């Protein structure tokens, strides 16, 4: 299964429906007690989950903790996975909750303010694109966490507002509003039209 998954490559480019469908087999295998299914799920989902957690928490370390938490939950509650209807929404919701928890833990610890996280990177080593990615990252860092998360799920995950709403536990209208307001604010921060 892992070899089959590795052939997929370019995970963010995989169409949404096929991503959800491709997770069904590893979820079923994990529920049946196949440990290798964890690695298959990692290959299919880690980039999306890490992106969601990073845009939600605004910190690479917290995002890594959140992704780890998702996989621990997967492994420890594997028996209940056979009843999961939408594995991709299960994973996104788990990553959302883990990221929220990581943010709360950090707030309780009252550590020093976060350094600017890198929210976007250029695929190739193009300096112009890298500069644009850096400029956008600085602007994205100034958005509220919920708006950042909605934008990441919508524009880089390719999810519908309904799916974003289900993953983040808010009404669909709220998910759409967060996305719209976040983009409007981002435009203002970048000096573009409102």
């Amino acid at each position, binding site marked *: 299964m892992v070899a089959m998954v590795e052939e997929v490559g370019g995970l*963010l480019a995989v169409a949404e429906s096929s991503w959800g469908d491709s997770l069904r087999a590893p979820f079923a295998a994990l529920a049946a*007690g196949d*440990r290798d299914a*964890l*690695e298959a799920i*990692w290959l299919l989902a*880690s*980039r999306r989950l*890490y*992106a969601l957690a*990073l*845009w939600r928490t605004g910190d*690479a370390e917290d*995002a*890594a903790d959140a*992704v*780890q938490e998702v*996989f*621990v*939950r*997967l*492994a*420890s*509650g*594997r*028996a*209940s996975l056979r*009843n999961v209807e939408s594995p991709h929404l299960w994973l996104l919701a788990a990553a959302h909750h883990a990221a929220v928890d990581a943010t709360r833990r950090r707030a309780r610890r009252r550590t020093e303010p976060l350094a600017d996280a*890198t*929210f*976007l*990177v*250029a*695929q*190739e080593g*193009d300096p112009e*694109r890298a500069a*644009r*990615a850096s400029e*956008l990252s600085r602007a994205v860092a100034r958005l509220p966490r919920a708006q950042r998360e909605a934008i*990441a799920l919508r*524009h*880089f995950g390719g999810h519908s507002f309904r799916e974003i709403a289900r993953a983040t536990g808010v009404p669909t209208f709220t998910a759409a509003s967060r996305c719209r307001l976040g*983009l409007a604010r*981002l*435009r203002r921060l*970048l000096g*573009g039209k409102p």
Partner: protein
Amino acid sequence: MSDLFPPGLEPPSPPPELRARVLSAASRAFDAAPEHDAWTRALSSPVLRLAWAASVAVLGAAHLFVSLRRAAPPPDPVSPEIRQMARLPRIDVRSLPDEAAPTPIRAEERS
């Protein structure tokens, strides 16, 4: 995708060392998780839950049906004791012979 995000930009990939860390933690959790026995699996089975709910609903409906068909008769306002007394043969004093007839109570006996 919004025009704010030109093609070629995307969120960063997870750091390479994260894969080993996450899979190791997940593997430990996998080993620590209790294996569910047949009873636990049966109790968490949606099909069996549905069957259980359906049987409770059928039993409830059957109970109502039987109760309504064998409705108890309305309660009698007259108690059984009084009804029995009413059924006693009545004695007509006038038909009794003189020696069996009750003697009227005289006024001086009353006091």
